[in-house]
């Protein structure tokens, strides 16, 4: 990013001079890095956006028309739920699979909702509340069987859990750069698989692309058809650096470390009286996101004390996922959520457990 700001600084794809080409190369290399990480065939079918919400909106609003039927789960973030509720008002038919109260989803429940007008199934890969991994491979296979498109929100998994678009039967993959991919905020994207007719996706934005400049209509080829306006090239330089770092460390190493910390945390928290940990307790079936409550203490108070008295930063409340909390039976108060990255340590986990134990002891 420093290199881009100090020595490149040009607009990718908007001119033929050396710096514009250098900027274009940085963006192109980032496309390749993302494609390799998620197992996408064609780096030019990656549309860069400003975050995963932008990517999900691009896909949902671009693909669905009144009369179409879409299926999702009750564990979705509002980045999926809100655009779907908006589309529902415009005539899109929406079915929501009710997950179990530990956040798990039965693939056959998705299949049971498929009808003649069903066009798309959209699921998160892992919940942002409980870290619960949804069975995307099984649902992807069901989508292929019924010739449906399958959109996966990988906000919680890209960079920390293996993703394989081909074998997981994912047609459309939305990602954000600023979480486990270790990029900066303002980066994300939509990966469009080979089964998707790009002409069936209407752009959210129309405008300059640096290509076909003689025409007043939007180009119809990817990525330009869906990527109008200057991309966040400096941010994408950071995203590529993040992915390169993941590749250097190794995704399996990252996953193994996070799974280990998650196991330690869950074991520690479940041993404390008055503490409830939500979601499946098996660390292998979830990401390093753990939600809990302490009996008789409001989550906001827990969050404040963890910050002020222990220097532990967490997020409390509904986590932009009201239906997920209804599923977990934690609505409307929500939970306290700890989330780890590969930089966290066993010592930090032990301190977090001790802090929760101390807070819990104060009210018992």
């Amino acid at each position, binding site marked *: 990013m420093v290199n881009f700001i100090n020595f490149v600084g040009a607009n990718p794809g908007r001119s033929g001079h050396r710096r*514009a080409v250098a900027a274009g*190369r940085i963006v192109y290399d980032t496309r390749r890095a993302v494609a390799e990480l998620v197992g996408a065939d064609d780096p*030019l079918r990656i549309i860069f956006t400003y975050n995963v919400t932008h990517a999900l909106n691009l896909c949902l609003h671009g693909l669905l028309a009144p009369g179409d039927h879409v299926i999702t789960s009750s564990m979705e973030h509002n980045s999926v739920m809100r655009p779907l509720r908006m589309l529902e008002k415009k005539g899109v038919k929406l079915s929501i699979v009710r997950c179990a109260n530990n956040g798990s989803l039965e693939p056959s429940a998705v299949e049971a909702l498929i009808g003649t007008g069903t066009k798309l199934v959209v699921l998160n890969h892992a919940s942002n509340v409980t870290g619960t991994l949804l069975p995307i491979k099984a649902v992807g296979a069901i989508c292929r069987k019924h010739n449906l498109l399958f959109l996966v929100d990988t906000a919680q998994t890209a960079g920390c859990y293996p993703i394989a678009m081909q074998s997981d039967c994912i047609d459309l993959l939305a990602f954000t750069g600023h979480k486990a991919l270790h990029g900066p905020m303002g980066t994300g994207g939509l990966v469009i698989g080979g089964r998707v007719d790009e002409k069936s996706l209407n752009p959210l934005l129309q405008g300059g*692309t640096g*290509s*076909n400049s003689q025409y007043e209509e939007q*180009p119809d*080829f990817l990525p*330009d058809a869906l990527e109008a306006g200057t991309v966040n090239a400096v941010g994408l330089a950071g995203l590529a650096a993040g992915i390169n770092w993941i590749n250097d460390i190794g995704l399996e190493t990252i996953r193994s470390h996070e799974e280990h910390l998650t196991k330690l945390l869950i074991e520690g928290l479940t041993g404390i009286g008055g503490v409830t940990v939500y979601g499946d307790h098996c660390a292998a079936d979830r990401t390093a996101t753990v939600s809990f409550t302490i009996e008789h203490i409001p989550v906001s108070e827990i969050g404040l004390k963890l910050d002020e008295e222990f220097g532990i930063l967490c997020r409390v409340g509904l986590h932009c996922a009201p239906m997920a909390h209804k599923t977990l039976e934690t609505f409307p108060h929500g939970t306290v959520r700890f989330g780890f990255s590969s930089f966290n340590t066993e010592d930090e986990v032990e301190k977090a457990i001790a802090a929760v134990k101390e807070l819990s002891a104060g009210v018992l």
Partner: protein
Amino acid sequence: MKSTSSTVILVCSTSYALHIEKTLKDSGIPCTLIPVPRHLSSDCGVCVRIASHCKAKTIKMLETTKIPFEGIFDLIQ
């Protein structure tokens, strides 16, 4: 006396030029990106320049990989 020394591949966007550049270099075909010659197109982006003796090999590679391009032109110098 005019002679043909280089050939350019026109593409629809810089992304495709970079994609072709990567693919050619991976195949051992030297190339560079240059601004699109104005007499060939009004596009303001870049195209891929190769040595003319690599033209046949390049066309075969583009056909194999199915990377779309808008045209191939010899530059007369």
